[in-house]
């Protein structure tokens, strides 16, 4: 099956993985302006336009982009000219950290006149955790806050953030916005029990899975406790837990860590098929056994 997609006027033919969303497909191609926020379709940080229509790329199946034209924030400016909305976000400084800005730009640049009259509704798919939205609304309404004082007159004046131009063009770099050669991924196997002691862990099956580099368990963790409830003073809370412990005290506590070539691999390696046997009060997956305490 051949796959073709146009992203910001460049053609790509790398076939997406089955089950891949458009967000990771785009970031895998180096379009780091597309941000990962909630990864569930709520926050809008990953908004891109597909054939001109804004969508949340984290819940857009990458295969559905076949034959379509995708615009990310990096493609919003044309011929070196900022899109008017990019300029307005700069003028009003409609951002603080700027992480949500790409999503706001890809959304607001697609709003029609009617949608502009009802911003709370039009922007309910975009979350900003810094600004309180006032500066964002100002940007959309064309309010200008920044000043360009003459040299020597800048003190006390409203200057734009130095990184502003990078923020509105999607070229500012945030955590993970970097290609790392040989990058590995780690997934945690977590406890389904509120309190249990691990009797044994068999990592051999996980280690045999192709692409898996390492599996860490309490056997590999330093025999040193830290406090999982640290307050201001180190003496107030007991050191209670090892990084990977042989006792788990809450549902979701990490039990093992699987390191592999891709994010998908360790998940499959770590996925056991839980089955509880009531009589022996043991719980097992393919990879570990434990004895629940206080159950």
């Amino acid at each position, binding site marked *: 099956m051949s796959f073709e997609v146009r992203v910001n006027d460049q053609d790509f033919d790398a076939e997406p993985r089955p*089950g891949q969303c458009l967000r990771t497909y785009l970031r895998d191609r180096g379009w780091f302006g597309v941000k990962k926020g909630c990864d569930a379709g709520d926050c809008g940080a990953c908004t891109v336009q597909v054939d001109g229509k804004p969508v949340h790329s984290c*819940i857009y199946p990458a295969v559905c982009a076949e034959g379509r034209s995708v615009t990310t924030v990096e493609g919003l400016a044309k011929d070196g000219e900022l899109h008017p909305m990019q300029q307005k976000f700069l003028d009003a400084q409609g951002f603080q950290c700027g992480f949500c800005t790409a999503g706001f730009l890809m959304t607001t640049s697609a709003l029609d006149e009617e949608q502009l009259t009802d911003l709370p*509704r039009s922007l*309910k*798919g975009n979350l900003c955790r810094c600004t309180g939205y006032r500066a964002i609304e100002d940007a959309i309404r064309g309010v200008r806050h920044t000043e360009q004082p003459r040299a020597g007159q800048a003190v006390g004046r409203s200057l734009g953030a130095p990184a502003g131009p990078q923020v509105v063009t999607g070229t500012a770099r945030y955590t993970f916005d970097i290609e790392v050669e040989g990058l590995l991924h780690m997934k945690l196997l977590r406890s389904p029990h509120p309190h249990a002691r691990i009797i044994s862990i068999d990592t051999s099956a996980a280690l045999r899975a192709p692409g898996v580099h390492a599996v860490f368990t309490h056997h590999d963790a330093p025999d040193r406790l830290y406090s999982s409830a640290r307050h201001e003073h180190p003496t107030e809370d007991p050191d209670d837990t090892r990084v990977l412990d042989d006792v788990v005290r809450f549902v979701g506590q990490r039990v093992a860590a699987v390191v592999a070539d891709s994010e998908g691999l360790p998940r*499959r390696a770590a996925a056991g098929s839980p089955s509880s046997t009531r009589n022996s009060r043991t719980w097992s997956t393919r990879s570990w056994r434990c004895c629940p305490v206080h159950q």
Partner: protein
Amino acid sequence: MDLNTVVEVCDARRRETWRPGDAWLGGGTYLFSEPQPHIRRLIDLSRMDWESLTVTAEGDLEIAATCTIAELSRFPKPTHWVAGPLFEQCCRAFLASWKIWNMATVGGNLCNGLPAGPMISLTAALDGICLLQSQTGAVRQIPVADFVVGAGVKVLEPGELLRSITLPARALGSRTAFRQASLYGLGRSGALVIGALDPVDGMLTMTVTASTVRPIRMRFALPPNAEAVREAVEYAIAPDEYYDDIHGLPAWRRHMTFRFAEEIRRELTEEGGR
């Protein structure tokens, strides 16, 4: 999010044998919003090219399962569809952003079967009929109100496909009243009641969704008084059928249901009602 356990995307047109771990892929807006560790194959419906919205010779509206919310919202409603405004009211009852409307499908909303699914509210209130198609090609029809039988529970058999939903012309001619409540502005529906007045015999039908685990309908052959509506709601909805989750306590949902039912009664049956 990436669904890393998915190993294959199949074009639904190839009609491959249904296996455990298969799931129909509509717009993907729900499937890709949560981990789906049980899914191995996505059977992609996006290339079926079903006509999204068709007005039949009888004047019924046939909505393909793959019709997006955006298409349904944009579709011009003829003036003789007195129920026309209900479409946009229900589209706007989505918690999801309008951007999601570009991919989310009407069929997907029904098949999720959530109490707050506004396409369930719309199609149940307008006497919608689901056309279901089994793996063998056998088809059956079932009213939307009977299609969803619990919170997230549908009558679909494994591999069975929701092909379309048909809204009869007569229901489209109904005068309707719409009430929706949420714990916060533009939020997820905690109670949603729709009244529809039959254009031929004047029967009033009220459809309760969001506050209940499944769509619940009440019919009044004659214009009811307040007491009759109160009794009908009391009788139709068992105490344990009020939904209980983070979006509203059952007691509040119950309260809003009674209140909306009475407001709708006044709006549709009393002189001076809108």
